[in-house]
């Protein structure tokens, strides 16, 4: 990762390429909260940060991570903040004002979506909506080389326009490996910044805040002009083609389009958008209103009559149809007869796959697709038993599960689940999970259920998740008086995302003991038990289920995967 041989190719994962890009840009301050498919960014900085002279921290949650980044940027440091899609929701409250104040030290925010929810239990999020909501300039790379180049470009844009810039990847970009051509790493002599007072710039208080919004929109206009001329929005030259047919795409979709055109032996004009926000509107209008022509042929303005304009365009984009809607809007001005196809052929649900795009393009361009023998096999319904993810052999959670089974009749108790390895409680053979939502929510929802019913309720939360978002919800159960039994699964690590440390981890020298936090909030029914002591655990569960106030059991036993 730290190899300094400009021009050499090395194999990098998309996420590693982002790290490399940040190092080449001279990043000084990095904060993150782990989450697949973004975790490798933080984990790589955790490994190499010191030797690269970069400040790195795993923050307690994404909101704090972004706020730390804002502080570093206000103090003039080149800053990178990374998280998974859901993390952007957690820090949204801090993101909005940051786009208004703008960055001082250039700042790049990486956010990774997970279409098809390969590693995301919660919902299939497309964070591009947040680009519109907050007006944050957003770039979408397709492969590792672009991950590196776009990261560097994002720092440049941020430096020039004094605004944070977001890079949005997806699982198939972040976890794509390929050779990447590297450049020089720019080492900084110091990571010390200086906070220079400038309240006009850093304080978002009305009435100034309304001026700031105006200034922001003016900035976005300038960035749009930049986007119009940026090479990352590329039009493949118009070939001799199936007349009047074109494709607009971005991110991973572009790679599947190229693959499909090769497979189908088609030569269609393609507009690939590297900018998602702000979109290069002129370039798009130009693309959809241009007549197909041969390479090298001079453009004859008089020929650009409506009958020679692009007749139909296919929008290849993953998840929600933002590009499609934008193109519809732009076509009203540029080419009102244009037929726009997108979600009609490409589902809004689930990730794109190469065969889906090949089929869509074949249909769209009316060309025959060779149906291979394999199709018959594909339709052949085979019964292969499903292999669900499992708790590891020896996982401390098995002991917790077994104690619960001994202590209560699962039919008579409502079980709350939260985010971490223990969400596998919801899968066979365990199946004790009656609701599951977002990080920390098990406590918040448990409180609501307890207030609304007289049912018995046990809710689980991991140690990492407790620090991330559980504490305010615990305080709420006390303040608003409800009595769930909360079991905090303290395995000493953030296991699910790759064993990152957290504030309560025993290896952390200034570690915060969970029982001190719980006690400090005033919880009286509190016990810390190693779940291997089944008798003690079972007795505590039985006793606490009858309490009038909230109770907490801290099930403390380290994750079997941590080497000590």
């Amino acid at each position, binding site marked *: 990762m730290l190899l300094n041989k400009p021009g050499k190719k090395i194999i990098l994962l998309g996420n590693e390429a982002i790290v490399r890009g940040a190092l080449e840009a001279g990043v000084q301050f990095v904060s993150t909260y782990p989450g697949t*498919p973004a975790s490798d960014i933080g984990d790589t900085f955790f490994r190499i940060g010191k030797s690269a002279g970069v400040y790195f921290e795993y923050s307690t949650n994404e909101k704090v991570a972004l706020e730390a980044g804002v502080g570093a940027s206000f103090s003039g440091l080149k800053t990178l903040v990374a998280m998974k899609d859901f993390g952007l929701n957690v820090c949204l409250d801090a993101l909005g004002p940051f786009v208004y104040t703008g960055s001082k030290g250039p700042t790049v925010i990486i956010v990774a979506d997970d279409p098809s929810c390969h590693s995301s239990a919660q919902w299939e999020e497309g964070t591009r909506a947040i680009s519109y909501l907050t007006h944050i300039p957003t770039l979408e790379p397709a492969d590792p080389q672009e991950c590196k180049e776009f990261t560097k470009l994002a720092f440049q844009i941020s430096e020039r326009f004094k605004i944070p810039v977001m890079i949005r990847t997806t699982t198939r970009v972040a*976890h794509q490996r390929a050779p990447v051509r590297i450049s020089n790493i720019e080492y900084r002599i110091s990571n010390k910044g200086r906070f220079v007072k400038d309240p006009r710039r850093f304080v978002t208080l009305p009435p100034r805040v309304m001026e700031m919004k105006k200034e922001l929109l003016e900035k976005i206009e300038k960035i749009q002009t930049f986007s119009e001329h940026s090479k990352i929005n590329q039009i493949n030259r118009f070939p001799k083609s199936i007349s009047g047919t074109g494709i607009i795409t971005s991110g991973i979709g572009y790679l599947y389009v190229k*693959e499909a055109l*090769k497979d189908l032996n088609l030569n269609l004009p393609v507009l690939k958008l590297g900018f998602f926000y702000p979109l290069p509107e002129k370039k798009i209008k130009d693309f959809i209103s241009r007549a197909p022509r041969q390479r090298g042929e001079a453009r004859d303005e008089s020929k650009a009559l409506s009958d020679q304009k692009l007749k139909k365009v296919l929008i290849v984009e993953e998840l929600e149809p933002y590009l499609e809607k934008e193109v519809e809007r732009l076509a009203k001005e540029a080419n009102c007869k244009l037929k726009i196809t997108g979600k009609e052929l490409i589902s809004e649900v689930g990730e794109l796959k190469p065969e889906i795009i090949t089929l869509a393009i074949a249909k769209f361009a009316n060309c025959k697709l060779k149906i291979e023998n394999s199709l018959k096999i594909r339709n052949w319904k085979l019964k*292969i038993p499903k292999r669900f993810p499992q708790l590891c052999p020896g996982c401390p959670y098995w002991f917790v599960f077994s104690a619960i089974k001994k202590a209560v009749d699962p039919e008579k108790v409502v079980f709350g689940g939260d985010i971490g*390895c223990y969400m596998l409680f919801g899968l066979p053979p365990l199946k004790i999970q009656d609701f599951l939502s977002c990080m920390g929510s098990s406590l918040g929802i448990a409180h609501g259920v307890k207030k609304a019913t007289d049912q018995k309720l046990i809710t689980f939360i991991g140690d990492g998740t407790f620090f991330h978002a559980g504490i305010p919800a615990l305080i709420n159960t006390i303040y608003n008086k409800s009595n769930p039994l909360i079991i905090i699964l303290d395995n000493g690590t953030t296991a699910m995302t790759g064993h990152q440390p957290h504030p309560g981890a025993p290896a952390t020298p200034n570690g915060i003991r969970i029982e001190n936090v719980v006690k400090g909030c005033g919880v009286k029914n509190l016990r810390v038990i190693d779940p291997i002591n089944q008798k003690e655990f079972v007795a505590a569960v039985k006793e606490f289920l009858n309490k009038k106030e909230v109770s907490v059991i801290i099930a403390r036993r380290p994750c079997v995967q941590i080497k000590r």
Partner: protein
Amino acid sequence: MLLVGTGGQGQITLLQILSEAALIEEKEIKTSELHGLSQRGGSVEVHIRFGKEIYSPLISQGKADLVLGLEMQEALRAYPLASPKTTFLVNRQIVPIPLVKNLTEEEVLKNLKKISKNVILVPASEICKKELGKEVVAGIYLISLAAFKKLIPIKPASILKAVKKIIPSRYLKLNIDSFNLAAKLS
């Protein structure tokens, strides 16, 4: 090439070795893998594409030239990506799925043969256990075998070089032994 197995069989290390070997030969390569939840003992499928002009990191349905299975049921699960032209190189091993009726070796083999004539079943785990005392290197054994049998466009020597680069020194000897075993038995 599709590399399939169950979580924890070392797919990502194998992927790193193959990518590095391709880089040594200055060949284009692209791969796709999954992390997080899917690695916890579930089915794991990683895609590797070698060749000229590769764009997609994922293999299209029916387009896998080689399915390398570290486990038999997982090899069969890959059938949507296979065709009669696909070669299956499969470890003769069933990692049982708890609490359900698993397919037997014979059932898997019978079905694989319905897809393609090119099914190579190798008792890799058994051989590695017997000869080297460790099953974990069955993956290295199989990718080496794939290189020796020319099922992938990578020279065995490049695999060996990549192993030396990727594998930490305390496990290196075991991995090299596994490569050599594949050389001997191929």
